[in-house]
């Protein structure tokens, strides 16, 4: 379960809990309905309640989407044998290469896309760099690391490696202030 889905699920459960408590309180008569009427009369026209309802609706749809729908996960068939098949989700490999690239000095905001082409894997990497990053060295480094990781982890050779530098970011410079 992805982290964002866990966070959404937690928020959704707290909101649902509040609704459930409200429903129990109202229907059991713990709070007289006539005391609720002035409050209910204030609801129309409250933009913040509309916003809250819309957010709750969006959270619910997101959870339904995560549970029952969404894009079919792209799978890589690694091996088959008499004992069964071994597959791996391509987005797990993509996350691995993104993590590897992000931990490389001078490389920021990485997005990776992997496709299987015949018996090899094709990698498309898009990233931002900082001003001090040497692009030829970085691209060689990233390509070699990607080749090593794919061969070691899933046993597939790297086919084509496309690297696109989207832009230059000044993040590192902003962090390192001279005192």
């Amino acid at each position: 379960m992805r982290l964002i889905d866990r966070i959404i699920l937690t928020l959704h459960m707290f909101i649902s809990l509040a609704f459930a408590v409200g429903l129990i309180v109202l229907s059991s008569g713990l709070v007289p309905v006539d005391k609720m009427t002035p409050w209910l009369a204030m609801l129309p026209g409250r933009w913040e309640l509309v916003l809250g309802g819309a957010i709750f609706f969006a959270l619910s749809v997101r959870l339904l989407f995560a549970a029952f729908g969404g894009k079919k996960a792209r799978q890589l068939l690694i091996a088959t044998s008499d004992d069964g098949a071994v597959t791996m989700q391509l987005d797990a490999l993509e996350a691995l290469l993104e993590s590897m690239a992000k931990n490389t000095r001078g490389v920021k905001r990485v997005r990776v896309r992997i496709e299987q082409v015949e018996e090899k894997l094709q990698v498309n990497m898009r990233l931002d760099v900082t001003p001090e990053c040497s692009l030829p060295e970085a691209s060689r480094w990233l390509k070699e690391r990607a080749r090593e990781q794919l061969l070691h982890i899933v046993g597939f050779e790297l086919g084509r490696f496309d690297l696109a530098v989207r832009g230059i970011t000044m993040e590192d410079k902003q962090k390192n202030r001279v005192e």
Partner: protein
Amino acid sequence: MEDKELTGASPEQEDVGAVKIADEVVSIIAGLAATEVAGIAGMSGGLVGGIAEMLGKKNLSKGVKVEVGEKQAAVDLYVIIEYGSRVPDVAIRVQENVKRAIETMTGLEVVEVNVHVQGISFSEADKGEERVR
């Protein structure tokens, strides 16, 4: 929970009774056998598994789907592997361990164990910064 009745008893043992094994039991055996293998960080449970864990229920059959017949079983495992492990090697060990565990404990013939790797788990030590040379 659906129970499956084993009908492999010999004629002279029929009066002893029948052995029933719930599907969830086979799932738990498979899940435990899979997580024992070095290189497996855990099982991937998806949204339903996440809800169950949030409610405090330890789900030993998380990430496991089984199809149990009268004498055979097929297993699908959804796993997360540790960074640095080779998927083909780990998967073979998982298949062997799960098959052995189910066949030993239940007597069912395991016809296939499919391993689906859903993610890779990093330890803190694996997240160090690398330098470009």
